[in-house]
């Protein structure tokens, strides 16, 4: 897979996605199913409110003490025998992982699902240095076979239907006949991956929560590939963002409940894998060395802005995208970068910069569904608006590429609007003029064309509401 393009082209890609009935059907079906499953889990609003408040407190509390907790995590991990590495950029993180693998003489890597490794483009880096990487999460395995990127952070191949998977497997797995039977497709993946697990020199995984109190890495999953990747090979490397730290083990139960119920509508995932040490003397299995790579990649900058810091509370459940009317219609690939949907629209512009992903905060109707379902209460619409403002008139250096958005036309329109809405005389004159001449303005008029490109031209009323009220004699009109 080649490195990610640096510029998002949301508008262009959305147009193509909207015209693809198969893609739209795949997403519609999947999102409807995920929303229903989540809804059933949180049928009791009292329980939801209490649990969510606990989840918010756990995440916000851990973030408030982030620097101390990272040091505590590092100390505990070191005591337990896990080596901790720090990377400011994805390039540094890739170099660290490559060094560890090369020092161990590793040639074949098996991977558990990890969005941070996608953010790093780790596979491409390792492949370029002669190290083979095999994704083992079924969804990730499918898209790796297809040479694609994930389109959803929990269900990476949600954009494909079973006929597409059947054709892919028949084409790419030796001896595999074409079948749309999901049990048979799953069994084929198990057979194909068993050997890869057994022959891997190292396993690479992500981390869902890193508990500072005990130095424990918590990984949740349903398939068991994450457990295999972190147990069978002799070396385990975990990569994670610096924000994933939890202060106490006691924070884990409410967050596990919120995460699995929000993500897939399960009371708990099949496996909760808690890794605290490498293989100890006398133990018969498990990796003999465990490394943890802590990736910053812009997160410490996000942290510096008190409002935007809430972005880092995210536990990657994907409920925001499952409930997003925009994501459901355009799919994950439209967002270009690793994290799609509402969380991507606030995270990507902050990590990559508003100069290359500045259109993403605008790809929202601000309907608020994402904030309503977010289990850790991230005020996503509020942060979208804040990023729209930062793109035009920066108030903080926290946002990369601030001030690079906007255009002369946009500035002029806003200036004129502000002027008109702050002066009763101008407002009266302006609305009257629009009533008289508005219908004469062609749809292609510069400025108006931004609106009429995808919508019909508004019809201007002959008289403004204000004028009508005045005529009817309302005293305060």
């Amino acid at each position, binding site marked *: 897979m080649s490195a990610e393009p640096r510029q998002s082209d949301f508008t262009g890609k959305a147009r193509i996605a909207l015209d693809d009935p198969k893609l739209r059907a795949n997403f519609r079906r999947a999102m409807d199913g995920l929303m229903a499953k989540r809804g059933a889990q949180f049928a009791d609003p009292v329980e939801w409110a209490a649990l969510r408040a606990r989840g918010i407190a756990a995440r916000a509390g851990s973030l408030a003490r982030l620097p101390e907790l990272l040091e505590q995590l590092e100390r505990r991990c070191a005591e337990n025998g896990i080596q901790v590495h720090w990377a400011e950029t994805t390039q540094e993180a890739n170099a660290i992982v490559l060094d560890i693998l090369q020092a161990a003489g590793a040639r074949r890597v098996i991977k558990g699902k990890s969005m941070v490794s996608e953010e790093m483009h780790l596979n491409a880096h390792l492949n370029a240095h002669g190290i083979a990487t095999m994704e083992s999460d079924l969804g990730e395995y499918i898209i790796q076979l297809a040479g694609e990127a994930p389109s959803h952070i929990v269900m990476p191949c949600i954009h494909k239907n079973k006929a597409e998977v059947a054709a892919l497997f028949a084409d790419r797995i030796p001896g595999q006949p074409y079948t749309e039977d999901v049990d048979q497709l799953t069994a084929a993946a198990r057979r194909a991956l068993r050997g890869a697990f057994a022959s891997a020199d190292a396993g690479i995984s992500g981390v869902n929560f890193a508990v500072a109190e005990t130095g424990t890495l918590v990984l949740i999953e349903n398939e*068991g590939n994450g457990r295999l990747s972190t147990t069978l090979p002799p070396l385990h490397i975990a990569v994670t963002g610096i924000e994933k730290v939890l202060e106490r083990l006691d924070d884990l139960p409410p967050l596990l409940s919120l995460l699995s119920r929000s993500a897939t509508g399960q009371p708990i995932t099949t496996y909760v894998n808690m890794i605290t040490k490498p293989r100890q003397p006398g133990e018969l299995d498990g990796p003999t060395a465990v490394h943890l790579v802590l990736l910053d990649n812009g997160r*410490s900058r996000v942290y510096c802005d008190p409002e935007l810091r809430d972005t880092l509370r995210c536990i990657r459940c994907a409920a925001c995208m499952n409930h997003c009317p925009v994501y459901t219609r355009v799919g994950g690939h439209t967002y270009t970068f690793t994290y799609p949907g509402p969380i991507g629209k606030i995270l990507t512009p902050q990590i990559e910069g508003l100069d290359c992903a500045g259109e993403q905060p605008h790809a929202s109707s601000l309907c608020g569904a994402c904030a309503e379902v977010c289990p850790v209460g991230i005020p996503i619409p509020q942060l979208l608006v804040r990023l729209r403002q930062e793109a035009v008139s920066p108030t903080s250096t926290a946002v990369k590429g601030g001030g690079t958005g906007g255009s002369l036309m946009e500035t002029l329109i806003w200036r004129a609007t502000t002027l008109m809405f702050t002066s009763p005389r101008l407002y009266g004159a302006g609305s009257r003029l629009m009533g008289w001449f508005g219908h004469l303005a062609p749809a292609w008029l510069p400025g108006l064309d931004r609106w009429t490109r995808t919508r019909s031209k508004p019809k201007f009323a002959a008289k403004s509401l204000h004028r009508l009220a005045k005529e009817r004699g309302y005293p305060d009109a």
Partner: protein
Amino acid sequence: MPEPQPARERILSRLRAAPARALPADPAPGGPVWAPPVHGDARLTRFRAMLEASRAEVHEAGAEDWPEILRTILAAKGVGSVLYAPNTATGRRLAEAWADAPAPTPALVAYDRPVEQVKPMLVERIDAAVTAALGGIAHTGTLVLWPTPEEPRLMSLLPPIHAVVVDRGTVADSLSAVITAERWTDGMPTNAVLVSGPSKTADIEQTLAYGVHGPKELIVMVIG
């Protein structure tokens, strides 16, 4: 001596320089404070119902007769070889009881050597494994496994069938209750795993399929 890490210093100094911020207000002021669920007398019923909802097979048995019941279940599934832990109480009980059991009795294979020496057998050739569980969690229908040198991690993961023996007296209400009662914060083992059903996936068209990587079947023997 670890190498100095300039990235570490730069990241931490940026984080330390960030302005402090008041913690967010309670989103549901006056609402109930979250507490771990309590199931009381309904604990075992809930444990069983939740496990069965995740497609685990649950059997109740006595402390003495469980190996015989398990033997019948496994034999009916055509299981030929069973991985066991010879130096645990569970493993010893199984070996004793199966020593002179009538045919068909699955062959017991001991996991008593490092994984490197037995990898092909573990990965490809074992039909089932039997382990104990440290306890259970009623709320989510979950087994708590703490693998040990005597009962290694891969036993509950590689074979297509995993049978777990759990003492009914060790079933707790919630994960929070287990963490507190077992004083997990005093020290965690190399690896602890919560298991709530057989391995599954819904990655292809949200259709549930079992046994994609881990066990396709989970058999829970609730004893005592």
